[in-house]
């Protein structure tokens, strides 16, 4: 069964067509990457999947629920990490995780918070106010927040954005292990190495349209490319 089924999705901002009829599907437990240049429509597509934006055409089904009609049901099963997300600055890291966990099943709250603290790996700094965190610490807190709720579908927009090499590596491993526990992951990234390492399948998007879909290895063979970066350049620019 597909975790995500997108058919001819159209999203407009006034007269601007941000997404022009894209279609793809993601299997359960799969890590699916949406790759494309700036302004290609990646973030818009992810925001639509996250129930933040309405659609102008086509259909989106997430975990069996129709996005247009059953957004509240979808919100119980997903977790979204925006690219430039922030946290409440007057809360401590722990209080922020607690605040988010309180929206879920009360029985699971302590375990969720504990899992969040482990993912963030902030040590004693978890009890410091968020406004004292560095960019990397903030990102780790937000990744922890996104994954601690055991979502069926994790939508991650540039999950390692702002992280140094070591932290980014940890987050990638975490995403991989999360997918192995059955969570479906939809992510966007500019980092082609990350995409190659993480994703089971990718879709290359340019100017609101999907230009290529497939497994990274298969795409590299198809385009006789040494890496995904070359595939990306050939499909998008050639």
């Amino acid at each position, binding site marked *: 069964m597909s975790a995500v089924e997108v058919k001819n999705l159209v999203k407009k901002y006034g007269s601007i067509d941000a997404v022009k009829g894209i279609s793809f599907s993601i299997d359960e437990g799969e890590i699916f990457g949406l790759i494309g240049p700036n302004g290609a429509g990646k973030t818009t597509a992810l*925001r639509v999947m996250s129930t*933040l*934006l309405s659609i102008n055409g086509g259909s989106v089904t997430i975990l069996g629920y129709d996005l247009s009609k059953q957004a*509240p049901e979808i919100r119980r099963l*997903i977790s979204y990490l*925006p690219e430039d997300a*922030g946290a409440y600055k007057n809360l401590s890291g722990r209080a922020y995780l607690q605040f988010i966990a309180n929206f879920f099943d009360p029985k699971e709250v302590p375990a969720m918070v504990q899992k969040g603290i482990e993912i963030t790996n902030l040590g004693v700094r978890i009890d410091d106010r968020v406004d004292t965190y560095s960019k990397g610490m903030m990102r780790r807190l937000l990744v922890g927040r996104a994954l601690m709720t055991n979502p069926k579908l994790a939508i991650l927009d540039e999950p390692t954005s702002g992280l140094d090499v070591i932290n980014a590596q940890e987050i990638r491993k975490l995403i991989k292990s999360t997918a192995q526990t059955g969570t479906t992951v939809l992510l966007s990234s500019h980092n082609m190495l990350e995409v190659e390492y993480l994703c089971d399948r990718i879709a290359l998007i340019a100017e609101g349209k999907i230009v290529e879909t497939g497994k990274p290895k298969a795409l590299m063979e198809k385009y006789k490319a040494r890496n995904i970066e070359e595939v990306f350049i050939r499909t998008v620019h050639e």
Partner: protein
Amino acid sequence: MSGLGNITKKEIRELLTPATFIPIIVIALIFATMGTSLQGMQEQAQEPPIIGVISEDNSSYSAMASTVLHTYAKSVYNSTSTADLQIGLQTVEQHNGVAVVIIPGNFSERITEGQQGTLEVYWIMKGTGLMDSISSSILESLLSFISTNVSKELIKQNSTVNASFVLSPTQRIETTYYKNREFAGLSPNTISGMLTSQSILIPIVMMMIIVMAGSIVITSMALEKENKTLETLLTLPVKRTSIVTGKIIAAAIIGLLLAVIYMIGMQFYFRGFEMSGGVNLAAYGLTLSSTDFIWVGISLFLALIAGLSLCMLLGTFAKNYKSAQTLTFPITMLAMIPMFITMFADFDTLPLPIKILTFAIPFSHPMMASRALLFDDYILVIGGIVYVGLFALVTISIVVWVFKTDRLLTGTMKFKWLKALKRRRF
């Protein structure tokens, strides 16, 4: 282009937004309407007071008093018998007049005997606001002028007259009719003074609550956007209605806490004014029952909710903390307008356009509620509660609807004319 020109052009471009201009334009229109109406009201109030005169005395001092009254006031009813008092009051009331003055038969006789001559004044009070008391103040000046003229005459006739008597040769016995009640021994100005707390304290406190709690809500929305926490919040399994009402309730609690602190300070400040009159409000039945306090509480609570939901709606326009500061301006104005109106005049005595405006602003109702309840005007209070409740309900529904649309995140506004203007200029 010079550095200065470049910076100026960029700043104008950033500041030229609908969120900046529309509230100011609306407020300017409201003030223009208010100014025109209040000007007419002021001109009307400054005209000679309309009175009735009943004079049972035909001798010199009463003639002097009658002359002053007929010269400087407009007498619409004249009689020579106190038995006609009720007819006189009805006639004066029909002409929107201010009082019936009775010059008793022994007025001159008492003065001649070295005793204070009595003038009986039956006031018809229109309202407790500052503007409402202009006509009665003019008549009070005329009555003092009569006393001065009598003093002059007494000194002219007899230089050895008792000094304390000659300085105050007349006295007044006053009765005021207001909202179907009779206040024996009180003038309209005294009653207005007694109601200082209802006239000034409550509107000021209400205005402060709205402004402070309102800015909390608007800033909260702006910070959600600026700190990029809104997107996360909107993808969590929580109803949009819960987000909206949660923010409103939190701001209302903080607003009420701040109000209590303000109220304590202001009450100490106003206690001085109330004590100076030395009049016991309870003796005239001017106290609120426990049921009345519940009505005032409901009115205050609903106005706060209505105000905060309006702030939430404005908050959805806020892009960041800076723009939130601009958006608190219309709320401040909407709270200040009824505050000044209720200080200056009673709802009943307002010109129709201002009456409609006052009723339409939800914050007016708790400002007027306690004063209205003192005079058993339940229709105004309950009508206001129903209106404010509906206002809050509709506004919250609109906010929830906005929360369900893309507008909250994308901030798309279809002001095509403004975009076209910007494109043309820059």
